[in-house]
């Protein structure tokens, strides 16, 4: 118990590092993924190819491989990223592919008839997109996007393998001293659960808000 109290600051710091890695990574994934989703539905051949190459290329690589490339491969061509930044970029690139597919399916899921009806009632293209297409598409996107966010948080544990002491890394440090694996990893699991329940709650709340706006 004494060990645990002494280790608590380190574990909390680890939790903070997990958030510090996964929140920027998810924001990067949102920007990149949305952009690539628009590319993929743009009907411009070159942009579609670019979007498809990105999704199929990155989504089909193990995240650990991407992280190892960024951490140990890039310095060989003269680019030495700080470890945290390399992890954020790697996570963002990886999660971006899933964001892209979630956004694309959200856009594709909007009933064509609804868009045609909006056009027929005299709305401009801008209004069709902002008043009809996006609100409907966004609502269907929220649950898959929340899942991507949760996966991003959980995947950030791989940072422990490339020298970043986030929640999993901090837990390993604690376990090395205390030799209490079940307690140690139980605490880590509770930390991840806490973050992800918050994400789930926020997702449900924003879904309700969007429904209200209709």
């Amino acid at each position, binding site marked *: 118990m004494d*060990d645990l109290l002494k280790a608590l600051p380190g574990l909390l710091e680890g939790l903070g590092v997990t958030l510090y890695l996964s929140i920027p990574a998810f924001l990067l994934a949102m920007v990149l993924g949305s952009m690539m989703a628009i590319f993929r539905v743009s009907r411009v051949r070159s942009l579609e190819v670019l979007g498809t190459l990105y999704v199929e290329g990155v989504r089909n690589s193990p995240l650990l491989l991407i992280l190892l490339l960024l951490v*140990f491969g890039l310095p060989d061509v003269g680019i*030495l990223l700080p470890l945290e930044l390399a992890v954020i970029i790697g996570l963002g690139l990886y999660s971006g592919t899933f964001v892209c597919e979630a956004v694309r399916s959200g856009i594709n899921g909007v009933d064509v008839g609804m868009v045609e009806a909006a056009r027929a009632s005299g709305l401009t293209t801008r209004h069709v997109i902002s008043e009809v297409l996006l609100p409907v598409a966004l609502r269907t996107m929220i649950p898959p996007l929340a899942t991507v966010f949760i996966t991003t948080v959980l995947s950030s544990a791989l940072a422990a*393998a490339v*020298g970043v002491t986030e929640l999993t890394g901090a837990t390993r440090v604690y376990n090395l001293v205390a*030799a209490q694996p079940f307690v140690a990893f139980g605490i880590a699991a509770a930390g991840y659960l806490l973050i992800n329940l918050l994400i789930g709650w926020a997702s449900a709340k924003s879904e309700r808000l969007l429904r209200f706006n209709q």
Partner: protein
Amino acid sequence: MNYSRRKFFVTSSTAAAAFVLAGCRGINPERLGGQADGFANVDQSGVVAQGPIGKNLPSSPILDEVRGRGFLRCSGTDTLPGFSQTNPVTGKLAGFDAGMAELFAKYLLGKPAVNFVKSGADTREAFLQNRTVDATISTYTITENRERIVNFAGPYLTVTSGVAVQLGETGIASSADLAGREVAVQPGAAEEALLREVPNAVPVRFEESSQCFAALQQQRVEAWVANTAIITSRAGTDSRTTVTDIRFGESPFGIGLPKGDDTYKTVATEFINTIAEDGTWQKLWDETAGLVDRTTNPEPPAIPMGR
């Protein structure tokens, strides 16, 4: 497929192939780890073949179970050069700890039948507690906290830690100079030794010694701490890095055993004393970690019974 599209495919696949080929030529074998570092020839099978077989071994719950099964389940790592690393050519585990596991199995069963279970520093206690394995031989430092939940036979080897730095580094002359600096370590024994000696050092943890080494070469960290055998094997042979004279800490490595079977622990202790007395221990060191680390030359253990 129309003409322009075919042309696009031909051009792009040629470009891709050229890119891959160029990449292959550029790969430095040292980066792949394991081969160019002096541990390529580690092979303990000759020593194991001559290892002793225990006589009149007693009966105990775990010993009986191992005998009935016909092989020893032992956990360890496969990424520690000189101690326990998979030889890429033979596919077999090679090194001092790997040899200890085989010798222990031979001592108990008459043949070196080991079923290797990979475990990191995180899972060693759990594997012993839930009886996934019969023993853990994995540069496993004996500590008070661990002895509360697992038995240790040993120490069978006590190592000191060394420090490697970039060539030309002058600011690191003693272990105290590591305070506040980023130091690459592998999780486990090396990390513990570093934090005991320099609590203010900033450990940057990488799973494999090749990654710690790469981090030092790429100037991601200012120093790399590991036991002297590993440090010497990699950093001592590279043009960008050098091994300092700094030595600190003593890490006593023990054979981790499940709690509760003290007869089994006594047999394991007798095993260590037996191979130390008949010279097997020294031969094993000379054929494995000692191949590269000529300076350390540790003493064979002599463990008082009842420890």
